[in-house]
């Protein structure tokens, strides 16, 4: 699949890995542009649900990265995260998710090079694996009784002033 550009989502802590990625930038290191970074205060804040959701929303690979053990700005967040993700990995593996798509790493604020290495490796690995089909397919799967074929009938644009106001007030 030569044209496949994997979608990589990175959940990183602000103190170590985000700063490490900044360092990679200030050092003008180069890495694949496929990664989208979401900043968290700490890996301890990262809920497994986020990873699940990222896969559901089309990520082909997910990276979770934080401070090395003992370096956590909040003392123990990464230790808790480590246990949480050890368990979550086992669960994903058990239901048949390829763990090659989920990478965990410790990247400190001084490890710009390691950030580049981790991101590059994951991107290239996922590139050779191809798109992640499992969750994406699931997103579009329907029960037989829904008659999925019926979706996409006639459309209308709702833009009466009242409706517009109502919709605008939502978000």
């Amino acid at each position, binding site marked *: 699949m030569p044209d496949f550009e994997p*979608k990589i*989502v990175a959940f990183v802590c602000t103190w170590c890995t*985000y*700063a490490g*990625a*900044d360092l*990679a*930038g*200030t050092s*003008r*290191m*180069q*890495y694949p*542009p496929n990664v*989208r*970074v*979401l*900043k*968290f*205060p*700490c890996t*301890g*804040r*990262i*809920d497994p649900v*986020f990873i699940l*959701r*990222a896969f559901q*929303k*089309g*990520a082909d690979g997910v990276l979770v990265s934080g401070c090395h053990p*003992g370096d*956590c*700005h*909040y*003392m*123990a*967040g990464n230790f*808790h*995260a480590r246990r*949480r993700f050890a368990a979550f990995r086992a669960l994903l593996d058990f239901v048949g998710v390829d763990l090659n798509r989920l990478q965990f790493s410790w990247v400190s604020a001084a490890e710009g090079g390691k950030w*580049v290495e981790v991101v590059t490796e994951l991107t290239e690995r996922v590139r050779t694996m191809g798109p992640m089909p499992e969750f994406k397919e699931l997103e579009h799967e329907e029960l037989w009784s829904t008659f999925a074929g019926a979706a996409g009938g006639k459309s209308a644009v709702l833009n009466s002033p009242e409706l517009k106001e109502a*919709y*605008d*007030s*939502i*978000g």
Partner: protein
Amino acid sequence: MSRIGVFVCHCGENISRTVDVERVAKAAGEIPGVAFSCDYKYMCSDPGQSLLKKAVAEHKLDGVLVAACSPRMHEKTFRKATESAGLNPYLCEMANIREHCSWVHEDREKATEKATDIVKLMVERVRKGKSLAPITVPVTKRALVIGGGIAGIQAALDIADAGHRVVLVERDPSIGGHMAQLSETFPTLDCSQCIMTPKMVDVANHPNITLYTYAEIEKVDGYIGNFQVTVKHKARSVDQSKCTGCGVCMTKCPKKKIPNEFDQGHGMRPAIYVPFPQAVPNTPVIDRENCTMFQSGKCGVCAKVCGPGAVDYEQQDSFTVEDVGAIVVATGFKLYTIDRKPDDSPIQGYGEFGYGTIPDVIDGLTFERLASASGPTGGKILRPSDGKEPKQVVFIQCVGSRAREKGISYCSKVCCMYTAKHTMLYHHKVHDGQAYVFFMDARTPGKGYDEFWRRAVEEEEAVYIRGMVSRMYQKGDKIVVMGSDIQVGVQVEIEADLVVLATAVQAQDGADLLAQKLGISYDKYNFYSEAHAKLKPVECATAGIYLAGACQGPKDIPDTVSQASAAAAKVMTLFAKDQLERDPVVAKVNEKYCVGCFACKKVCAYGAIEEKEIRDRQGNLVKKVAYVNPGVCGGCGTCQATCPSKSIELDGYTDEQIMAMIESL
């Protein structure tokens, strides 16, 4: 519908060289909820900031996203600008399209695409963001110092000298700690008591210091700026307000043969006593377990001879509650003993040394007392068993320390230096004696330290044998020390008159219990943990509590004094303002849905989470829920990831924000 303004920065050419900023700005304009977007050469410049402020006013913006460099660079700048434009600063975010994009990619097309995605992502974050108000916490400008050794004394004096009130609590009848026990100090060999006692007197006389000796910490409530500490005043049996310190009671006490703790059990003291002559305060206490009056009800001599009538056999333990804003923990250390350890102790004793059954095997602190002019031998080196002057003394370093098989893997840091000092003191006092030292390494990093050690070896004739001792046993009046010299590669056997062990420096007994009261963390050796090994070496993870001295880990006197002053400086910084202002990125509990499983409390490294009772109007308990003390919360969010029902939420990083960001991918 939100009205967000997106400002895309060129950063000169730093961004615009690889990212088509105009296209990014245009794409941003089409994101639902974005009311304004533009690009500008230098957003961080004054004109850039004015542009931002103007746009906020003109377009009635309710959120700001600056797509520029790393937030670590300019987040503060733009939040300030946003605030001055009349918006809550936390409604301003930065999209990092420089460090994370233009600087690391060359393909203009892909970099532009990525920058657009980053902007989209961050717009969602702004859209779901909330206004946050900074948190203020009132500060009680009064400090508590726990422990009256050199660390506590130094910290108390520094804080008191800065004009703040200090409560100093010491467990023993007198302050002074271990330093008061020492004979002379390395690397200058000046007399410990000569430099220590004036400081002790300063403490006693300082108008800002309230000194509680023979007292312990019973309970600690509250949080930074607002601690309520209950202090238990153990019954002294002597009324401090009446006692003049004349000492008649001590001379008249019929029970005089009690081993003196201050002399490591080698001198004697009466049942009513001060630990040592220069004690501060100079008020005696009655050791009830050894007092005839308390044990059999018959005696009462001290009360009879006490002129002011200060002796009070009826005195009870009493309690006071102290309001303080900061706490300095300076509880010091104890020495490892080679005795058989209780079964539940993870630390092993030394069976090969006979588990402490050989009387002339002593520890370093005992040697200090033997060498001290005020000690039980008047400064003469005489061995405990028969009072003879030892002619062959074997010193063994690293007893317990750096011995993983004994359960302790750390270096006790001070032993190399004090053993060298001991050989010198011994050589000065017993000219025809020979000192041998078994050592693993000589660790002497410190000003003048290595010179000092070299002096012991080269000028004071101590024989240093690199190797460890495998066994020692009593043979007649000698102690046979069997060891190895690994440099020569032979077994060594020495018949010694006295063996001095440089036993490991350990955390005080009960250090863990005190830590639990304070809510601070400790390592597996019960040494207190600093918040950050490099950058916060005196702060505890629990805000408002600071560490000084060997309670944090083995330390010598100069290091201890430095850290004590550092802790004092931290306290003074805290006391410099009337109110403590904190970043509002803290967790909050949704009390309606919290079911009180307290998983959050279990994972909170800051001890910021408490149990709160919810009661109905009749006062019946409805349920218990978690409560986050915003003054203490560190803002890591581990609690939220742990909470099964997401009834606790970290402001600034809410699930709604994060989910919206993931959704936009």
